[in-house]
């Protein structure tokens, strides 16, 4: 269960970090989304809604327990699956676009196979924390 706990805390930290950076500059994030050529009309709406959703899910992974914890892990799975599909379609369509995964901290490097693999790995971690839930925190944490 310790692996599941580490996976959950890691995913939560990543979502909080990515959400906060994206929230700082929604215009830049909307541009990144539009450049994916994947429902570009939704770019401004996603740029407004996704960062706070990441923050809410990240916080939920940290603070919830019992019945809410699987829901938070499933929400993280949904988010990472969506990101993986977006990144993979851009990579396989040879669209030269910056990932935008961490807002202004994403750099200007184009999406590569490594980006796709990283996202698949994160999705797997989210799935793992959902299907093998840990207790909120071991007793030694309190």
């Amino acid at each position, binding site marked *: 269960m310790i692996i599941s706990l580490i996976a959950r805390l890691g995913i939560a930290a990543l979502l909080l970090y990515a959400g906060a950076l994206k929230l700082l500059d929604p215009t830049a994030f909307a*541009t990144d989304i*539009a*450049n994916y050529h994947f429902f570009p009309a939704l770019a401004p709406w996603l740029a407004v809604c996704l960062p706070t959703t990441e923050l809410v899910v990240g916080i*939920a992974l940290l603070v919830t327990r019992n019945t809410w914890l699987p829901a938070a892990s499933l929400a993280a799975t*949904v988010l990472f699956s969506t990101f993986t599909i977006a990144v993979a379609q851009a990579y396989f369509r040879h669209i030269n676009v910056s990932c935008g995964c961490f807002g202004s901290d994403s750099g200007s490097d184009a999406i590569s196979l490594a980006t796709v693999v990283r996202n698949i790995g994160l999705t797997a971690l989210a799935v793992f924390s959902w299907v093998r839930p840990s207790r909120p925190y071991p007793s030694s944490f309190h």
Partner: protein
Amino acid sequence: MFSLSLLWRLALLLGSGAGLGLLVHAVRPDGLSLREFSTPTSCEGSSSTPVEIDATTAAGFCARTDVLIADTRSSEHYAEGHIADAVHLPCDAQGQVASEALKKLGQAQTLLVYGESSEQASHVAASLHQRFAHTSVFILKGGFEAWMHAGLACASGPCDECQEHK
């Protein structure tokens, strides 16, 4: 695994995140425009795919100084005849030939790409479309055959930049 209560909680988490985002957007003075957003980066121009146009329409491009024409056919076919002033860029172009052709084509605001057929040109047109984001890329419908059939201006002779012609 997917109980109704789990799905409700999932919807509530995702919905509250999205709702919070809209709330932040509403009170944010520097928020982006949701209805009139347009991308300021170089990828803006590449949101549409290359459009096919017929030979007569394409002939109208010849009078424009911002247009360049790319021929994607083989060196032999190019030497036998091509649209006047077309830059030779076969789909298997590599090295110096490709870089010289791309350098030249990159100066245009509009590109007309043709091959033996629309299908042959479409691959090169798509890659040019991605490479030159602010350039409008068109494909000659029916390829060089359609151009010839319409009796439009042609030129012959080898490609100056291509080593294989020398």
